[in-house]
């Protein structure tokens, strides 16, 4: 496998030393470079190990062998598959460019070249090829890991193909079953082939990899709904060789018999008995028997299964088509094996319907329509990587992350979360679990959890909730985020979420909020704070009796002018203190303007004695200065009156009190034809 740590190596072929060194300089930061001064030298370098290089930059006009000759020779030696070539030339004639592409060049850079363009093209090309090599590497790694359990490995690999080309897993299982069936019959018939009973499981397992090379075929061609063009079909046909190449790299490392058989099968399962197949046009028993069997099993299952483009043919119809040569030529002995025991075939295919481990996992995951497509590129290694990354960040985030699936009634926690709560990572039937109940410190926590789920809907599946929880004994504030997964029918099937400790932030926020709604001088609520508080009161306790009183300090402007602002502030503070003393906790007191105050009474029986008492408390001497106030009061006379309405009435009554000579309180209900004012009074007149 190509290791990322090693610098990719580029071969620069140009007869001009200067041109080579310009290119080498442009690329030297990121790549190793090697140079060759003409085509012959280049071919000699490549003969010494083409796989050392990730890319060739190739000039056209050179002594000895020119660029075209190099391309042709590389193609002949089969180097072009893995080693991209970018032509670098000042040739501008389109037939020259055309010819280079025809010979397999990947790209063409025209002189004079721009450092950034060279750089970009080189990188793009290397990445493109690196991806292909990476796929090989991924499979190699998977196989090494799973060597102990080859069956799992084969399942996984064949599912990669299946994911990618939307083929049913059934096809692969059928081919396996048919391969085993045909082998068994063949061994009974003849000892012409070097296979025995004990090879049957190995070969049939390897058969699952017959289309592994499709990993290397472009998605667009692989999953094209319509008929392939001739060119596309040509690309499609390369899958047998791609698969063989992948498997060959594997067999070098250990020579696992499954891999060896898989190589034969992948490479030659489209060969035909009469030599009309591909890629090598092998004929008769030059085709390994494993590949011959898989070829016929592949065709038979394709015919007898339903496909988007065709119905399922019966055994009889399929046999007729195969025997008449419509599907290519096959070994007569194998045709015999296939046609003489329909009952055996039916039995073998039925038995193959049992789920494999990988199938089972897939079924449990349920249909993932978008993941299905995506899985083609991600492959297993990337999934592993994602999982590792996820765990790493989960650990760092110090959040309790959880997952709940309704079908299994299973509650899962991140490792950090489980540790924090002191419970196992997986809890079945969480509602009744004593450890979870103790951890959350709330009885019926699961009911509350369910009520959060009910706040979501398929259209808006996320919900955020802030609450206090006594996790680990101490009550702290937490944010709970959840994301609910709904079925197509709209049922909540699962939830993921996290619980974040936001206690410190919460306290800081409450402090800030408290500051924003309080008057800094008197500590009373300000106008906004009062409005907020009253909205809350009126909404939550609509049945209570409310009265609004508005008052200001008589001749406050004079007090200020005569004694200074410091003294004015002193008066306001004193009035505020008296106000707080004179009212009860559930009354709301606020300073809503310079010397203007508001009281909202939440009273039970008689209002007037309360007002009389409060008024008396507020008025009185402050440091030798007599302070009086004028007050307007409006009580609720009918239900449904809003705070704003009461305020306007009280404000109008305040005016009436001032008109009457100040130092008194007036009830709005005592004034005939009261005209509510705009709601603002000029303070401190």
């Amino acid at each position: 496998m190509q290791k990322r740590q090693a610098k990719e190596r580029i071969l620069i072929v140009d007869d001009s030393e200067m041109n080579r060194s310009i290119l080498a300089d442009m690329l030297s930061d990121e790549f190793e470079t090697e140079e060759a001064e003409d085509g012959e030298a280049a071919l000699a370098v490549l003969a010494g190990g083409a796989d050392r290089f990730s890319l060739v930059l190739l000039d056209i006009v050179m002594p000895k062998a020119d660029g075209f000759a190099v391309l042709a020779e590389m193609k002949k030696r089969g180097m072009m598959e893995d080693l991209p070539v970018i032509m670098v030339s000042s040739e501008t004639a389109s037939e020259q460019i055309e010819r280079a592409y025809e010979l397999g060049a990947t790209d063409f850079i025209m002189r004079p070249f721009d450092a950034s363009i060279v750089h970009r093209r080189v990188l793009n090309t290397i990445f493109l090829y690196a991806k292909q090599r990476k796929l090989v590497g991924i499979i190699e790694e998977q196989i090494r890991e799973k060597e102990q359990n080859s069956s799992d490995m084969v399942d996984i690999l064949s599912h990669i193909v299946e994911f990618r080309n939307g083929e049913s897993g059934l096809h692969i299982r059928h081919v396996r079953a048919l391969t085993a069936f045909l082998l068994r019959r063949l061994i009974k018939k003849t000892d012409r082939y070097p296979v025995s009973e004990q090879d049957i499981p190995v070969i049939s397992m390897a058969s699952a990899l017959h289309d592994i090379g499709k990993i290397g075929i472009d998605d667009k061609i692989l999953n094209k709904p319509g008929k392939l063009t001739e060119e596309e079909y040509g690309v499609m046909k390369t899958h047998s060789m791609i698969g063989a190449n992948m498997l060959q790299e594997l067999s070098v490392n250990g020579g696992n018999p499954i891999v060896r058989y898989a190589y034969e099968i992948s490479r030659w399962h489209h060969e035909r008995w009469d030599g009309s197949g591909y890629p090598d046009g092998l004929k008769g028993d030059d085709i390994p028997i494993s590949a011959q069997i898989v070829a016929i099993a592949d065709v038979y299952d394709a015919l007898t299964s339903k496909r988007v483009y065709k119905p399922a043919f019966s055994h009889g119809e399929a046999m007729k088509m195969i025997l008449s040569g419509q599907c290519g030529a096959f070994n007569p002995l194998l045709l015999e094996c296939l046609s003489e025991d329909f009952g055996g075939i039916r039995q073998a295919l039925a038995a193959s319907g049992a789920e494999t481990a990988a199938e089972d996992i897939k079924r449990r995951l349920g249909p993932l329509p978008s993941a299905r497509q995506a899985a083609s590129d991600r492959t297993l290694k990337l999934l592993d990587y994602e999982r590792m990354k996820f765990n790493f960040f989960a650990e760092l985030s110090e959040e309790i992350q959880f997952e709940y699936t309704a079908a299994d009634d299973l509650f899962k926690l991140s490792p950090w979360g489980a540790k924090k709560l002191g419970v196992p990572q997986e809890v079945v039937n969480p509602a009744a679990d004593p450890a979870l109940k103790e951890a959350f410190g709330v009885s019926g926590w699961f009911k509350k959890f369910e009520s959060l789920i009910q706040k979501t809907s398929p259209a808006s599946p996320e919900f955020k909730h802030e609450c206090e929880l006594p996790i680990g004994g101490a009550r702290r504030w937490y944010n709970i985020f959840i994301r609910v997964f709904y079925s197509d029918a709209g049922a909540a099937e699962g939830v993921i979420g996290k619980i974040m400790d936001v206690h410190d932030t919460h306290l800081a926020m409450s402090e800030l909020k408290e500051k924003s709604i309080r008057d800094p001088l008197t500590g009373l609520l300000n106008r906004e704070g009062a409005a907020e508080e009253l909205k809350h009161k009126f909404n939550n306790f609509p049945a209570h009796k409310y009265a609004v009183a508005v008052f200001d300090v008589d001749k406050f402007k004079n007090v200020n002018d005569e004694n200074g602002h410091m003294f004015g502030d002193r008066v306001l503070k004193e009035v505020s203190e008296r106000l707080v003393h004179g009212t009860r906790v559930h009354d709301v007191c606020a300073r809503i303007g310079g010397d203007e105050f508001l009281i909202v009474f939440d009273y039970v029986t008689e209002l007037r004695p309360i007002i009389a008492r409060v008024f008396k408390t507020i008025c009185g001497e402050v440091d030798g200065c007599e302070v009086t106030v004028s007050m307007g009061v409006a009580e609720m006379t009918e239900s449904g009156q809003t705070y704003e309405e009461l305020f306007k009435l009280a404000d109008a009554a305040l005016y009436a009190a001032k008109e009457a000579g100040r130092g008194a309180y007036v009830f709005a209900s005592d004034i005939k034809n009261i005209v509510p004012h705009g709601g603002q009074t000029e303070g401190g007149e």
Partner: protein
Amino acid sequence: MNLEECYLKLGGDYAGVVGRLRSERLVQKFLLKFPQDGSYRLLLKSVGEGNAAEAFRAAHTIKGMCQNLGFTALEKSSSALTEALRGGSLAECGKYLPAVRADYERTAGAIAEFEKSLQG
């Protein structure tokens, strides 16, 4: 004489080459290497020996280097010569070679002067 003045003198595109190679240091490095390249001598030798194919390759190489280095004047004349030689005949050579010779000398002269000013 600075690098830009040298380009002016040899009839080159200074802004273009700095834009492409992204570094004055690189431009200077390759410019100073140019006179050491054997292609021009090879061109003259091949023409003298009547070897049209070799002459074509040499002219082509000169053209390519000039493109990379932004030596506009020499690129034009060597390009014309390259096309004249492409057919494998030296018949047209006499028509184009003098211009290449003049431009090469002008280029090499400017570079020599620049190199001198570096040492001085």
